C-alpha cells in the first residue's frame, strides 16, 4: 500500500472543507474523510499481516523520495507493527472525534479543517522514517491545538491554549536540538541508517536528554505535565480526545522510536532517571486526581498517571515492558478518548462537569452512563478491557528488570492502581448513581452519532481486552528490532 495516502486523504479532506458550503456539506466531507482514513488503516493492517511473514526487512511499504538534497533530507516513509497500531488508534479517534463534534455549529468549517490538519500531522509523524519529516509533522500537529482550544474551548481557554502551545513548542525545540545532534554525528536523517551506525557514547549522553525530554513534554513527563490538566479541561470535546488519544501518543512514540531506538547506550545510562520521573508521575498523578472535582480535570490528571506507565515501560528496557508501553499507548488513547467523549456528552446536556452537582444520570441517560462506566472500568484496569492487559504487561515487563530499585518502583506503580480505583469509582458513583437533581429529568439520551462514536471506541477497547494476542503479535516484531538495538548497546560495553 502507498503510505502517502494516509497523508493525502486527510489533507484532501481539509482542502475540500475549505471549499464546502453549509453545515451539511462540512459534516459530510469530514465524516467521509474520516471513514476513508479508517478504511485505509484497516486495509493497511490486513496488507501488513499478509506480508509480514514473507518480508524480513524491519519496515514495510517503504517509500523514499529525495526532498532537500544538499541537506540529505528525504521524504522516507515506512511502517512496522508499532506504527500500524498507532495509525489504527489515530483513525479510530479521528472518526470518533468527528462524530462527537457533529453538533459543532459555530465556525464548523474551521473546526473540522483544524481537526483534519491535526490528523495529517499525526499520520505523517507515525509513518516518517526521516528525522526531519518526522519533526515537520510533529510541529504540524501543534498549532491546530492552539486554535482549537483557544477558539472553541471553555473556561480559561486562552490561557490554556497559550500554555499548551508554548510548552509543546518548547518540547519540540528540545527535540530539534536532539535531532540536530544526531544529524551532525551521523551525517544523515535516515533513522534506519542511523540505527546501523553507532553514535559515540558521550554524544548520546548529551543529546538523549534533549530528545527524550522534548518528546516527554508531549506525553506528560513529570515535571513537564502542567499543560495537560489545563489544556484538556479547556478544550472542546473532540480536541480533548485528539489531545489525549493522539497528541500525547506522538510523544510516547517519539521517546521510543527516536530517543531509545537511535541512542540505546544513553537509554541504558539514563533509564533510572526515566523510571524515577515516571514513578513520580504515576503516583503524583493518581493522588492529584483524588483531589479534583471537575470530571475533565479528573481525566486529565489520570492521564498524567496513565502516561507514566508508558514511560515506565520504556524506561525498564525489557522486551515485555516495551510491548506493554505500546499497548498502554493504544489502550490509553482509546480509553481516554472514550472518557472525554462521555464527559462531553454529559456536559453538553447538564452544562456542568463538577462531580458534586451531578448525580443519578443512569436513570435518564442510560447509554451515556454505560459508556461512562465502561471508560471508568477500563481506566482502573478491569480484566476484559484493554487497560488491564496493558498495565499488566507493563508490570510484568518491569518486574523482569532484576535491579532492586527498579522493582521497588514497579511495586509503587502497582500500588497506584488502588488509588485509581478509588477516584474512578467515586466519580462514577457520584455521577451516575445517587440522587438526581430535578433539572436533569428532561435530559435526552445519546444521539446516533454519539452512539456510533462511543461504540467505535468501545469496540477497540474490548477487542484488545479480550484478544490481546492480536495486538501483541502486531507489535512484537517492532519491539524485537528495538530490543536488538538495545542489546547491541549492552554487548558494546
Amino acid at each position, binding site marked *: 500500500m502507498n503510505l502517502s495516502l494516509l497523508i493525502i486523504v486527510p489533507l484532501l479532506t481539509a482542502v475540500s472543507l475549505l471549499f464546502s458550503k453549509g453545515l451539511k456539506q462540512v459534516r459530510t466531507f469530514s465524516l467521509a474523510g474520516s471513514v476513508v482514513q479508517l478504511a485505509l488503516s484497516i486495509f493497511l493492517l490486513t496488507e501488513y499481516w499478509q506480508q509480514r511473514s514473507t518480508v524480513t526487512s524491519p519496515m514495510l511499504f517503504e517509500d523514499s523520495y529525495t526532498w*532537500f538534497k544538499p541537506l540529505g533530507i528525504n521524504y522516507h516513509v515506512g511502517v512496522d507493527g508499532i506504527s500500524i497500531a498507532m495509525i489504527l488508534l489515530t483513525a479510530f479517534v479521528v472518526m470518533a472525534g468527528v462524530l462527537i463534534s457533529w453538533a459543532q455549529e459555530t465556525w464548523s468549517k474551521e473546526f473540522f479543517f483544524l481537526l483534519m490538519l491535526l490528523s495529517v500531522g499525526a499520520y505523517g509523524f507515525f509513518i516518517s522514517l526521516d528525522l526531519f519529516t518526522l519533526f515537520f509533522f510533529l510541529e504540524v500537529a501543534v498549532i491546530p491545538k492552539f486554535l482549537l482550544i483557544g477558539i472553541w474551548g471553555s473556561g480559561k481557554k486562552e490561557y490554556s491554549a497559550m500554555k499548551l502551545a508554548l510548552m509543546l513548542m518548547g518540547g519540540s525545540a528540545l527535540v530539534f536540538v536532539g535531532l540536530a545532534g544526531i544529524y551532525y554525528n551521523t551525517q544523515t536523517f535516515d533513522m534506519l541508517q542511523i540505527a546501523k551506525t553507532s553514535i559515540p557514547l558521550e554524544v548520546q549522553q548529551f543529546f538523549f536528554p534533549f530528545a527524550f525530554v522534548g518528546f516527554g513534554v508531549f506525553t506528560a513527563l513529570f515535571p513537564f505535565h502542567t499543560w495537560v490538566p489545563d489544556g484538556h479541561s479547556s478544550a472542546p470535546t473532540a480536541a480533548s480526545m485528539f489531545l489525549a488519544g493522539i497528541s500525547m501518543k506522538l510523544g510516547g512514540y517519539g521517546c521510543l522510536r527516536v530517543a531509545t531506538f537511535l541512542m540505546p547506550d544513553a537509554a541504558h545510562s539514563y533509564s533510572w532517571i526515566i523510571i524515577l520521573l515516571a514513578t513520580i508521575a504515576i503516583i503524583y498523578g493518581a493522588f492529584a486526581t483524588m483531589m479534583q472535582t471537575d470530571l475533565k480535570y479528573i481525566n486529565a490528571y489520570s492521564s498524567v498517571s496513565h502516561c507514566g506507565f508508558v514511560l515506565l515501560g520504556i524506561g525498564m528496557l525489557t522486551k515485555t515492558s516495551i510491548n506493554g508501553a505500546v499497548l498502554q499507548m493504544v489502550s490509553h488513547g482509546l480509553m481516554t478518548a472514550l472518557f472525554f467523549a462521555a464527559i462531553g456528552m454529559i456536559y453538553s446536556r447538564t452544562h456542568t462537569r463538577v462531580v458534586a452537582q451531578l448525580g443519578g444520570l443512569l436513570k435518564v441517560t442510560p447509554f451515556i452512563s454505560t459508556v461512562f462506566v465502561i471508560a471508568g472500568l477500563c481506566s482502573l484496569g478491569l480484566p476484559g478491557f484493554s487497560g488491564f492487559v496493558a498495565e499488566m504487561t507493563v508490570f510484568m515487563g518491569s518486574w523482569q528488570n532484576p535491579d532492586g530499585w527498579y522493582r521497588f518502583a514497579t511495586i509503587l506503580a502497582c500500588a497506584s492502581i488502588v488509588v485509581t480505583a478509588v477516584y474512578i469509582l467515586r466519580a462514577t458513583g457520584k455521577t451516575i448513581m445517587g440522587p438526581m437533581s430535578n433539572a436533569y429529568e428532561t435530559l435526552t439520551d445519546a444521539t446516533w452519532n454519539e452512539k456510533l462514536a462511543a461504540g467505535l471506541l468501545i469496540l477497540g477497547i474490548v477487542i484488545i481486552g479480550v484478544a490481546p494476542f492480536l495486538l501483541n503479535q502486531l507489535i512484537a516484531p517492532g519491539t524485537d528490532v528495538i530490543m536488538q538495538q538495545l542489546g547491541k548497546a549492552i554487548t558494546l560495553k
Partner: protein
Amino acid sequence: MWTDFLLLMKQEMALVVIIFFLLILKLGKDRSNESYLKIVNGLLLLNLIFGFISNRDGVLFNEMFRNNGLMVLEKNILNLGMLIISLQSWSWLKGHKHTPEFYMLLLSTMLGMFFMISGGNLLMFYLGLELSTIPLAAAANFDLTKRRSSEAAMKLIFSSAFASALLLFGISMIYGTTGTLTFSQLPQHITGDPLQLFAFILMLAGFGFKISVVPFHLWTADVYEGAPVAVTSFLSVISKGAVLFVFVSVLYTVFRPIAGVWYLMFFILSLLTIFVGNLFAIRQNNFKRFLAFSSIAQIGFILIGIGGSSPEGMSAVVYFVLIYVFSNLAAFGVVSVVSAATGKESISDYKGFYKTNPVLSWMLTIALFSLAGVPPTAGFFGKYFLLFAGAAKGNYWLISIAALNLVISFYYYLRIVKAIFMASNAEPIEKITIPLFPRLALYACMVGVIVVGFVSWIYEYIHSLSYGLQ
C-alpha cells in the same frame, strides 16, 4: 564589449530606464495617479520577468563590477519584493500628491542596492550603499502631513550617516594596511593584525547598523513606526535583504582569513540580537513597532546561519530572505490594507478581526506563522535550515538557546493570533474590501509562503550557487 556591458549590467540598466521613463512621464501631461500606478506596476512586473532572461557571469571595469548567478538571483528577489510593495501601497499612493517621485526615490535606492551587490571593490560597494540610503531617507518622509514621518526620516538619515562614517573609516584602514580595495585581492593581505581587526570591527558596526543588529538597533523601531507602511516594509525586507547579501559575501570572501575571530563575535551578537528583539517585541502594541522588533529577532537567527560559514549557511541566508520577503510583506500587506482603510495600527485594534474580515485574518495568521517558523509554511524550513547551518560547527549550546528563543517568539506571534481569533471587541475593524492590486500582492505572498518551503528545487538552486569559506 558593448554586448558584455549590456548583458552584465542588464538589471541595473532596466532600473535606470524605468526611472528616466517615469521622469519623462512626469514632465509630460498630467495623469491621474491611477493610470500612473498601473503603468508603474506593469513596468515593475516586466522588470521582474526581464531579470530572469539571459544572464551571464563576468566582470567589468577592472573588477569594479561583477555579476554571477547568485547576484542575479539576489537582485531578482529584491525586484520581486519591490513589485509586491508597490502593489500593496496602491491605496496609499492613489491619493498621494507625489506618486511619481516616490517611485523614483525607491527605484534609485534599488539601483544603489544592485550596485552594492555587484560591487567587486570596496569603493563601488560604498557608493552603492550611499545611493541606497539617501533616497530612502527622503522616502521615509513621504507622509507629508505627519510630523512623525519627518522625525523618522531625520532619525534614519542621522543613523545612516553615522553607520556610513564608521564603514568608511573601516574601509580606509583596510586600504591603509593592505594597499588594495579589490575583493579578489584583499584576502591575501588580510593577516589579522590589530589594525585590521579594528577596521573589521568598524565595518561590522556599519553593517550592523544597516541590518539592525543589537546593539546597533536603536533607530529601528522609531523609524519603522514613523515612516509610511510602504517605506517600512521596504526598509525591513528589501533594504535589510540587500545588505545581508553583501554582508555574507564580504565575510565569506574578503574576511575569510580572520573567520575564527568574527565567528566568535557572531556567537555573541546573534544571541544578543535574538534576546533583545524577542523581549522588546513582547511588549509592543503598535503593529509596526512590533514587526520592527520581531525583524530584529529574525536578524539574530540569520546571524546564526551566517556563522555556519558553509555553503549551507549562505544558501540558508538567501533562502530565508526569499521566504522573509513573502512572509513579512504579507504581514505588512495586511497592516497597510487595514491602515489605509481605517487608520488603525495598534495590535489591540485587531481584536475580533476574524469576525469581520476572515480572509485577511487567515492571511495575517499564515504570515505570522511563517515568521514564527511553524510548518507547513515556508518559514519553518527557512528558520530550521539557518539553525542547522549554525549547528554544523558543533555549537549545540548556541542552537539550544536559539531554539528556546523560538518559543519566546511563538508567544508574541500567537498573542496576535489570539487577538484576531479569540478576543472580543466592541468596535472591531469593519469589513474591508481589498482593492485589486493589494489583493494580488497578498495572494502572491500567500502562494510564496506555502510553496517556497515545499518546492525543494528552489533551495537546491540557491545551494548550487552558494559557497562557504573558501
